């Protein structure tokens, strides 16, 4: 049997040491009437070779071979080999939560460095050691603003955040009686003047995404000011790669900055595991969800690292904890740490700038095609929304696919975003795309 050790003689010896005649005595701890009297109905076991053949056959039915212009919150950024090599070490991936700091200084220091790098990236004062992914990070931030402000009745959320993030917030808030105020969209970004009439002194937060779900840039300072004018907190969901170029959340007054960290060296793997990032201003540190790693000293005065501020957490505070999260995304935080170490200030700037330039080139070329235009005139970063007239969105996707390109997702894959037509389609362009690929896509869509 796979992965087991003891042979029948050893098993007998062990049973004798236990003082029972057979395994069935141990199994009698489960009352007989509750025991399953038949084998589980599962497929037959496969040896390693068969398993690999089986999985390869199924993997072959997934189309990951086409040139990827897919976006919508998960992007085909390049992952340097060092990220895989380092995080593929068993010393990292077969360890667990660093409950014993003496036996976990490697992970602890790496997570402390993750926190430090996220602070450097965002300009925020403090970062936690990761959450599940970008959508739940927004929900955790919303809960956090309620704890900080004491306002539990109302939150203001831009309609231009990722529609799935909004769904998650709705799921998390449903049984709390909290009203969600929707801030409407004008030309692909949050309508600040309309928002001014909707945000009031009862809102715990104003939540927006920058660049938003359409790829467009928001009026970040105005939205933060609007929040602060009402004593609410400004919460931004940002794109980590964009911070190689764009203003940092701290620059425009964000109180909490959250992100989907998938772009930071994490493979697409059909949607997860990814990385939730949450950083905030120093004054809110004790209201933060999730693990925090602190630097401290040991008995001999050596600098070292340990889990910190654990009294916020579920294993101590139980129903009064700042979150129910326990297992987080350690290995993905490590991937992001290695990735940011490799890129450095110049590398992340190059990744951001190439993505921006290529996306704009692609948009410009695509919009030369009759019947294809940008849905919005608002500036965008690496992703944009196209509107197609004279043919269906699905026929455009099909035409691209036929020639070896994936574009999307189409807005109709999301729940309806108010005041935005559902016939738009997203396209994301990262540094990984070449001019030839972009030109090829343009040719494919030219009728």
């Amino acid at each position, binding site marked *: 049997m796979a992965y087991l050790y003891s042979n029948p003689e050893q098993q007998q010896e062990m049973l004798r040491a236990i003082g029972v005649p057979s395994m069935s005595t141990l199994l009698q701890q489960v009352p007989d009437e509750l025991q399953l009297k038949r084998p589980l109905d599962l497929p037959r076991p496969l040896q390693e070779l068969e398993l690999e053949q089986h999985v390869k056959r199924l993997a072959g039915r997934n189309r990951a071979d086409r040139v990827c212009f897919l976006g919508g919150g998960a992007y085909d950024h390049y992952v340097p080999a060092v990220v895989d090599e380092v995080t593929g070490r068993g010393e990292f991936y077969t360890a667990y939560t660093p409950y014993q700091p003496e036996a976990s200084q490697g992970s602890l220091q790496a997570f402390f460095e993750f926190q430090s790098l996220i602070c450097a990236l965002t300009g925020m004062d403090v970062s936690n050691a990761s959450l599940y992914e970008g959508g739940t990070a927004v929900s955790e931030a919303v809960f956090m603003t309620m704890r900080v402000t004491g306002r539990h009745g109302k939150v203001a959320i831009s309609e231009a955040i990722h529609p799935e993030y909004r769904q998650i917030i709705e799921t998390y808030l449903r049984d709390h009686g909290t009203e969600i105020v929707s801030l409407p969209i004008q030309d692909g970004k949050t309508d600040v003047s309309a928002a001014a009439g909707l945000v009031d002194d009862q809102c715990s937060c104003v939540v927006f995404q920058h660049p938003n779900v359409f790829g467009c840039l928001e009026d970040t300072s105005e939205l933060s000011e609007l929040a602060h004018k009402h004593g609410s907190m400004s919460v931004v969901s940002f794109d980590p790669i964009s911070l190689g170029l764009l203003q940092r959340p701290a620059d425009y007054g964000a109180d909490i900055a959250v992100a989907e960290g998938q772009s930071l060296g994490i493979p697409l793997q059909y949607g997860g595991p990814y990385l939730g990032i949450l950083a905030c201003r120093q004054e809110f540190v004790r209201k933060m969800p999730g693990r925090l790693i602190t630097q401290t000293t040991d008995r001999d005065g050596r600098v070292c690292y340990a889990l910190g501020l654990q009294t916020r957490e579920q294993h101590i*505070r139980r129903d009064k904890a700042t979150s129910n999260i326990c297992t987080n995304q350690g290995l993905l935080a490590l991937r992001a740490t290695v990735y940011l170490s490799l890129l450095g200030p110049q590398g992340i700037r190059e990744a951001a700038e190439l993505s921006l330039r290529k996306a704009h080139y692609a948009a410009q070329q695509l919009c030369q095609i009759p019947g294809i235009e940008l849905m919005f005139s608002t500036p965008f970063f690496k992703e944009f929304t196209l509107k197609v007239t004279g043919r269906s969105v699905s026929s455009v996707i099909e035409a691209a696919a036929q020639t070896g390109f994936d574009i999307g997702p189409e807005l109709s894959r999301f729940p309806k975003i108010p005041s935005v037509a559902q016939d738009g389609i997203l396209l994301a362009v990262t540094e990984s795309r070449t001019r030839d690929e972009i030109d090829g896509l343009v040719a494919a869509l030219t009728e």
Partner: protein
Amino acid sequence: MRNTISTQSLFELSSPGRRAARFPENDLPDVALDSLIPAKTLAATPPQLPELAEGDVVRHFVNLSTKNMCVDTHFYPLGSCTMKYNPKRHERLARLHGIGDLHPYQRPENSQGMLEMLFELQEMLGEIAGLPAVSLQPAAGAQGEFAALLTAAAYFRDRGEKRTKVLFPSSAHGTNPASAAIAGFECVQLNRSKSGFVDLDELRANVDGSTAVFMITNPNTLGLFERQIAEIAQIVHDVGGLVYIDGANMNAILGITRPGDFGGDMMHYNVHKTFTGPHGAGGPGAGPIAVRSFLADYLPGPIVTKDAAGSFQLSTPAKSVGRVRTFFGNVGILMRGYFYLRTLGAQGLRDVSEHALLNANYLKARLKDVLPVPNGEHCMHEFVASAKSLKDQRGITALDLCKRLLDYGFHAPTVYFPLVVPEALMIEPTETESKETLDAFVDALKKIVTEDSDLLHAAPHTTPVRRPDEVSAAKNPILKWSACTKD
């Protein structure tokens, strides 16, 4: 032999102008950036990340990795965490082209292989649980709890029932009350215990028409199977409530008994525990939930369905509580669970649990003179020993033993949980350890208890650091690197 230069902080290793990753030259016409986006949106300077060469980065992290204990290097009997061997084949297969690089918005007709595996995983998890309806969405066990509690709330709301309370025993994992609170329920903790088991009278006295869910871990956190689980479920069902099984300890009962057969209505799995995730130094996990058919319509989605033509689709149940996360789920971990179940099959899974019981009971029997176990004659896959007499007689605490074990090359058990056992050491050897390893662990503990108590208070002695000061760290926490915090 230790390289202490490369394990300095990344920021200390930084040197201006040093580079690792570089990207190709821009292959497009060079246009001014501010002709593409407004200048006011740009940062004045790039982020102040450290500047390192590729060799710096590799040596830094590889040297850091050697400061960890892990399953690949050490016996890691961390109770409740199921630190079993993580098969290497899973790592290779999870990275395959078509799996590791599949975009979450790839359309279903282009993801049929992925959806087939996920569908099959749903089916297998439903069968193992005896609870047929499965959602793979939750990112970890705690999110599974939360998602299942929302599912219960939606079910009751649909029936027009106002049920506000979630009950759990005092030995419950901290996530149970935390998840209940976030799901909007009032928490009621049951504090009485009869030899480590739920006190039925106390349960009866606390359930009524306001009871939504009773959450219970079975085997419980003492490693004991709640023999009265059927009566417990009956008491909860009699008042119209639902029974939630925290699946943290599923490694004990695979193919032996099923939550759905002993009265559970809902449960979560920890794929990173039972189905050997791996644990990733603190995640990622995956926390799929399985529920009875009458709750299926309320599950979070999307889930995978199979149509009459045999093709697989993503769909959201009719009265779904909604999404609990973006995209489908922690697919990379779910895939590893799938590979594991396809490797083991029915008999293999049962063998896992039987060997987990054998190893735990063997260890318990061999340690009984040194570290007695207050509750239960036998145990399931883990047991909770007590160092109380060592503490009373010689001042040696459970923590001292844990720290000293590190010197002997063993990771420590879970300590001081559950709270119902004084000086608790929760030991879970798992099935993937040999008798020789267990014997060596016993020998080490037997030797340790004969050692001078001051030596133990000062342990560990061979690790890179010893006993970090967590008290002052909590008062004035240093949470990021800055030039003034360097040593």
